[in-house]
């Protein structure tokens, strides 16, 4: 059996070596296909991973807000039903909800019970910054710096200063560098902040955020939770809990559980970024269609090479059949020719893809003063996918003409020759 296979491979190899140019064209077709598949998919998969990481990590995996998806019924409605009540009440007073998450310590304890999860309470509110006659609004977020740094990546976004300085400096605040520029403020400068409740305090700039942070916006600033509560006139109140999980992909389930138990709106990063995730799906569909097209074109090369080989070798096919080679033998010879072309193409394509990735990986892009490199996924999985797809396409592309080779009737050839 192995003797037979060795002989058939020998014949297939001779055919390919005799037709060097066609062999070269077909293998380089596969090589280019595989090489670009690797480069494109490394870029797409890498950038997608990078993108999702950005989505997941800039903000907490789950944010619990002090609001509900639908408001709770008023006590009167709860007692007598919304419609068709047979009781008429006079002087009924609508109960005013006090904003803020009630019993937030219980929620934090619940979060702490999930292994690897951290919950960071915060209070956000609006203040007005006033410097030398200039006024600007600031969305101030009061945090506990030691916990918040473990929940989100805001400390990476700082141009200067650090979150811990909020604890060290009385009235410390961190704002965006573009806002600071608009107000002509620098590190260590003092700015007056007035809340909507009328309280005014002097704040000191202890840090600046980099420009262009999508999640932060240009008008947000961080303060110590305690000081924010006092500035906003809402002592002991928090209105947001950020939760970081050990497994970001469990965020949707955890958020659902928390919301069911405490009724507050718990938004997972998936929910928050549903539109982006939809975009990624489209991107993937586009990528895989382009890549399949590349591989398809490569397999056309194999089809052409093998079918030319079959057409050229009709006489040889007749000889081999008359000697006693079976139809299966002939089919196998030509399928192996296609597989060999695909295999050599794959190996060359791997090298090409590796080279392309190295070039792409060495490119540097200055963005907002930072040097950024393209995110590339260089895992061996891409190589294996490319190889498997090309070999399968090659085998199929070769099988079509190989079937014809098996069907060549030696009598037709012998008659024609005489």
């Amino acid at each position, binding site marked *: 059996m192995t*003797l037979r296979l*060795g002989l058939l491979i020998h014949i297939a190899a001779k055919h390919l070596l*005799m037709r060097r140019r066609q062999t070269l064209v077909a293998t380089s077709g596969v090589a280019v296909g595989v090489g670009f598949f690797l480069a494109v998919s490394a870029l797409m998969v890498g950038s997608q991973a990078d993108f999702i990481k950005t989505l997941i990590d800039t903000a907490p995996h789950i944010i619990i807000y002090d609001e509900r998806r639908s408001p709770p019924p008023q006590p009167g409605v709860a007692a007598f039903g919304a419609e068709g009540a047979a009781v008429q009440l006079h002087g009924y007073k609508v109960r005013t909800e006090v904003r803020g998450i009630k019993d937030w310590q219980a929620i934090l304890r619940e979060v702490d019970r999930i292994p690897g999860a951290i919950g960071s309470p915060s209070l956000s509110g609006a203040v007005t910054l006033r410097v030398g006659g200039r006024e600007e609004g600031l969305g101030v977020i009061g945090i506990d710096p030691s916990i918040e740094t473990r929940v989100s990546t805001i400390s990476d976004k700082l141009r200067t200063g650090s979150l811990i300085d909020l604890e060290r400096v009385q009235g410390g605040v961190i704002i965006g560098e573009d806002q600071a520029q608009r107000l002509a403020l620098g590190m260590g400068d003092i700015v007056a902040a007035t809340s909507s409740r009328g309280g005014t305090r002097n704040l000191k700039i202890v840090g600046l955020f980099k420009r262009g942070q999508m999640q932060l916006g240009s008008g947000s600033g961080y303060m110590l939770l305690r000081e924010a509560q006092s500035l906003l006139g809402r002592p002991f109140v928090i209105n947001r809990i950020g939760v970081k999980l050990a497994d970001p992909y469990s965020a949707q389930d955890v958020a659902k559980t928390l919301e069911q138990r405490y009724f507050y709106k718990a938004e997972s990063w998936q929910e928050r970024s549903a539109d982006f995730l939809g975009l990624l799906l489209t991107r993937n569909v586009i990528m895989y269609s382009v890549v399949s097209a590349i591989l398809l074109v490569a397999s056309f090369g194999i089809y052409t090479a093998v079918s030319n080989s079959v057409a050229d070798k009709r006489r040889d096919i007749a*000889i081999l059949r008359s*000697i006693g080679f*079976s*139809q299966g033998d002939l089919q196998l010879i030509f399928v192996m020719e296609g597989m060999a072309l695909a295999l050599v193409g794959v190996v060359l394509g791997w090298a090409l893809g590796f080279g392309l990735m190295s070039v792409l990986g060495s490119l540097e892009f200055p963005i907002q003063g930072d040097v950024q490199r393209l995110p590339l996924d260089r895992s061996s999985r891409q190589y294996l996918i490319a190889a498997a797809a090309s070999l399968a396409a090659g085998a199929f592309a070769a099988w079509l003409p190989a079937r014809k080779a098996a069907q060549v009737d030696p*009598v037709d050839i*012998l008659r024609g020759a005489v």
Partner: protein
Amino acid sequence: MNVDEGAAPVLVAEQLGRDLPGDPPVTLVKDADLAIEPGKFTAIVGPSGCGKSSLLYLLGLIDRPTSGRLLLDGREVTPLSGDERARIRLERFGFVFQFHFLLPEFTALENVMLPIRRLGRLSLPEAEARARELLGSVGLGDKVLKSPDRLSGGERQRVAIARALANDPVLVLGDEPTGNLDSVNSARVVDLFRDLAHKQGRAVVCVTHDPGIAELADIRVSMLDGRISEVLRQG
């Protein structure tokens, strides 16, 4: 050598016929009755288009008859599958065609080794030794590593004969094996064929339009319009 009657025929054709489908169908061979005997050199002769090559392809199991029966050692081979017929060709038959029909990418030695390697009974070194011996026996011992396009027409035909003998066939079939050769090479090939029958005891069937060769055959089968018109025992 004993060439009298009595040896059981290798191959027997009974009312063998071959029609090409069409309207009306074209008859290539009709009602051919023939026994191919071991140790005999049988020549099939006739004008061009009389069906002699078609009959040879039927006898060689390359083509399938549309009527009649074909018996190999008394066993009917007509209904066998393509793979089974290929196996018989590989193990028991050897072919030599008018044009040398060697694989151009392979050396003379590799061409002769093809059927041996496909049969797979010998190891690669044994196959090579056998192929060298066969090439030596047709006088090409010094040209084993030449590729076919470096050989003369006569030499190529002798390589083809060596290849036909590779698996020690009981039946050797020639389709105008001398048709493309000059008289010297032609005579040499005919001598080889006669030796295959007379010295090695094989059944040899040759299609030829050369009256000189037909004269040298033990049995001369004449064909006309697809029918066997005469079977003549000579010598």
